[in-house]
């Protein structure tokens, strides 16, 4: 019995950990290219989920496959727009504070827009990615399996993109030295727009995949948004494979913690881990040096 419980806790933790990991990847992308933390990233995820579920599926009645493509495309355009209108001006400000406040208020604006357009009633998409897979006595949802596969694909694609394509290489160059990049003839602003659009697309993908797990409401991503920040640091800040390791570590540890501490303190684990890592080993679990 106990063995089975531990196994189930690990599997469920792993599943949730991959969601944290994707969140960490999504904000790390923006951080690497602009040096900004996107404090509205949880609202991006929420926005993506609403565009897919409320707009395309329920209002317009398109099939999920088309809905997903349309949502990702919409979020790409949305990403370019906010990058041009908000992130690029904020990036050049004298203090990072402006970017923090700017993105916080962008998040609040997104929440209000969503509430005014699609209403405050929580909803779900019946039948979408519902159901579980049983391996022996251990249970995992189909949605979680999808998350794991998609995150693996995203990480591989990103690695290929950054190392093999011209745009990707240019993006890395921009990350390292903006002045040099400009001298090399790289359009930094355009490059950053692309990165942010990419991040918005990943946010939308997260939003779509968590619909069967969480209820679609205005606070759908609040908790994973905060813990995703922790995941990115725990694995190794600014390093994409580290995000995966950090996410999984937090997911599994917080679930296993329920065996020894009251369940109510489970949510502290991510933040305790965050502070401990920052103080003891700031380079993260993987110890990656930039």
């Amino acid at each position, binding site marked *: *019995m*106990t063995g089975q*419980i531990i196994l*189930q*806790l690990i599997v*469920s*933790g792993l599943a*949730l950990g991959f969601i944290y990991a994707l969140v960490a990847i999504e904000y790390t992308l923006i951080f690497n290219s602009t040096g900004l933390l996107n404090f509205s990233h949880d609202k991006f995820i929420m926005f993506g989920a609403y565009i897919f579920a409320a707009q395309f599926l329920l209002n317009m009645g398109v099939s999920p496959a088309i809905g997903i493509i349309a949502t990702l495309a919409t979020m790409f355009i949305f990403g370019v727009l906010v990058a041009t209108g908000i992130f690029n001006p904020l990036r050049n400000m004298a203090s990072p504070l402006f970017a923090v406040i700017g993105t916080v208020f962008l998040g609040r604006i997104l929440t*209000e827009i969503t*509430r005014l357009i699609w*209403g*405050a*009633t*929580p*909803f*779900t998409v*019946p*039948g979408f990615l*519902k159901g*579980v897979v049983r391996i022996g006595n251990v*249970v995992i*949802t189909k949605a979680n399996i999808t998350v794991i596969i998609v995150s693996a694909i995203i990480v591989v694609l990103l690695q290929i993109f950054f190392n093999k394509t011209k745009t990707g290489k240019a993006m890395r160059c921009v990350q390292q030295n903006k002045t040099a990049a400009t001298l090399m003839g790289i359009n930094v602003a355009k490059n950053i727009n692309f990165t942010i659009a990419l991040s918005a697309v990943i946010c939308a993908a997260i939003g779509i995949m968590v619909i069967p*797990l*969480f*209820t679609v*409401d*205005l*606070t759908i991503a*609040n*908790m*994973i948004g905060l813990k995703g920040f922790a995941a990115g640091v725990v694995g190794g800040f600014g390093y994409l494979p580290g995000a995966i390791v950090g996410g999984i570590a937090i997911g599994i540890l*917080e*679930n296993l*913690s*329920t*065996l020894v501490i*009251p*369940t*109510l303190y*489970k*949510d502290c684990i991510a933040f305790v881990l965050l502070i401990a890592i920052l103080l003891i080993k700031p380079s993260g679990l993987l110890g990656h040096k930039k």
Partner: protein
Amino acid sequence: MKKKRIVAVILSLTMMLSGAMATGVYADELDGEIKIGLSCAITGNFPLAGQRTKEGVDLALEEINANGGVLGKKLVYTVEDDQNTQTTAVNVVTKILNEDVCAVIGPHTSGNAAATSELYKNAQIPFLTGGSSPKLAEMDNPYFFRIRPSDTINGQVAAKYAVETLEAKKIGISYNNNDFGTGGRDVVIEALEEAGIDYVAVGHNAGDKDLTGQIMQLMSENVDCIISWTDDAEVVLTARQLYELGMDVPVIASAGIVMDQVLNLLEPEYVEGWYAVTDFVSTNDDEVVKGFVDNFNDKYGYNPELYASSYYSATYVLADAIERAGSTDPEAIREALTKTSELKLPEGLYTCDESGDMVHGCVVAEIKDKVPTMIDYVTVE
């Protein structure tokens, strides 16, 4: 440089202008009206409750005014958004209290009702809230009236049902760690200890997205019945994960589960055979409830749920009290509210007791194929 200045000037102009416009609104005073206040969460983390509350009150006011109003005058309200946060609730309640209202409905949650209780006491204006925490009745505020069953009632009924009807030997209590969940948990625990039944209480925080740890704990304790005291989003999660993790024991859930907006989030098999202790079921075939459900459906196109029903009823309770008081003097209305007796409304039978509680019974419902059906109405003294 110049451009920046211009934008700055425009910004400050907008602010001044909006300030000027805001002061204009206060001048709106009309004769032949009786004004009440309404504080509910229109924005913030729980906007749906506020929306439904407002819909319920709107419908009640429409009906009341169509039937000749109160004391021959039109009953109107001034509504403010409390964002479901303490600071804002205190602000808007003070704002409402400054607008010549004779009574106020809201704020809704127990925490915010507690935060604003003192304001009402000082202003000597009665308020009607749906905050269900048993602790509210202990505040000893003569201006406090509760228009929903307190969790003392729901909790006792749930515990009694689990022990007597379901014959549970060991009960798992899954509660949300907020004012609502812990209040309910305490009542259930007290009732179970009285009955000498074994229990284990496992909590989660509001906004949690995974309850595997909690459910595994209940499983390893071999409970044979679960009482779930939690909010809308969390009860959905509880239902899904209990089903997925294959925990097949009877579940008695707190009020929210019977609402369409919650049931719509679930697959039927998640909650098949669940019981609920609740204040309002829209499938109730009681005539008063039926009439309300039909009218609500005509106006908004969907069924009412417990927020709408609570605050619809609250408006009627208040109208009734003002009518009996024969004046809009808040003290007279308070007197009249304490004498409310046997008033039949969709939310239940309203009789005020000495602590301000007005509803003393609740519905036990069973959910079959996502439709909650009333199986019993239990009154608790």
